[in-house]
């Protein structure tokens, strides 16, 4: 994966497949304590302890179309090479939380990439799922909430190209204004 946004796009698919109705993504930039924390929390079907142990094994996957599952192992690898830490918490029937703590100043920390596109495309692909995204820098916190957007849209579908481009602009402009790295 070339950037963090690709990882997010990838891990979000896990949450979608787990049948979530609300998926929360947060990024906290903490340069002072040398941390860049990505959290993805869903309310999907969760995993048992045995499965959690296996998910970062590249040769474990629940899918039947192929025999490898690289999403989480690749994220874990990219976190660990910045001296950071990676954790998964999950409870059957409750949901799953993935926490990736990158070293903020480490040279190997991936570029952030197109977070705006990632969120807009995922939110429009799964109109029945709500996404809640927060991004915190030392300047401010930006909140993107599809519940709010859907309320304002009323009967207009969230997957209309104009709406998708609006969501992209909204996220991109606001991330720039809070000087997201």
């Amino acid at each position, binding site marked *: 994966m070339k950037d963090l946004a690709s990882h997010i796009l990838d891990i979000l*698919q896990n949450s979608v497949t787990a049948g979530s109705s609300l998926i929360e993504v947060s990024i906290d930039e903490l340069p002072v304590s040398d941390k860049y924390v990505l959290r993805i929390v869903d309310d999907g079907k969760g995993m048992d302890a045995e499965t959690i142990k296996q998910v970062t094994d590249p040769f474990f996957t629940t899918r039947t*179309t192929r025999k490898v*599952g690289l999403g989480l192992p690749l994220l874990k690898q990219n976190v660990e090479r910045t001296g950071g830490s990676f954790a998964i918490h999950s409870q059957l029937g409750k949901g799953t939380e993935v926490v990736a703590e990158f070293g903020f100043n480490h040279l190997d920390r991936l570029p952030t990439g197109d977070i705006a*596109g990632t969120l807009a495309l995922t939110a429009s692909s799964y109109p029945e799922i709500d996404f809640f995204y927060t991004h915190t820098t030392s300047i401010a916190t930006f909140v993107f909430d599809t519940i709010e957007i859907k309320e304002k849209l009323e009967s207009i579908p969230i997957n209309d*190209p104009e709406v*998708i481009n609006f969501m992209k602009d*909204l996220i991109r402009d*606001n991330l720039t204004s809070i000087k997201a790295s």
Partner: protein
Amino acid sequence: MTKITSLADLKNIKASVEAKMSLRERSETPDSMVQIRVAMATCGIASGAKIVMDYLINELDKRSIPAIVTQTGCMGYCYAEPTIEVTRPGQQPLVFGYVDSKKADQIIEKYIKNGELLDGIIPVNYENIEGK
């Protein structure tokens, strides 16, 4: 200072989409639209599926072809990523492999518009991802 897009701007977008939708007479059900699913698993993402999806959404809109573009999981053709599955109204889905922006343009012009087949179709006894 440049203007920052805010939620308030959504009102204008809404008005514009509403006008466009009434032109189409709101008669379109998903079944009468072209449906495209972009394989967006680890393999697809790493090969550039997101760029293809972005391209398809914007180009289909520009060319006024009513379509729904969504994501799907891995269809098992990781060697041929990015792959997309195109369903023309009333027809069987077709899976195209090695799709970049150039290929996506050909798929729109030839297959979606005219039903012409072109290179890069993955021949399968098709089963969709949910059916597996």
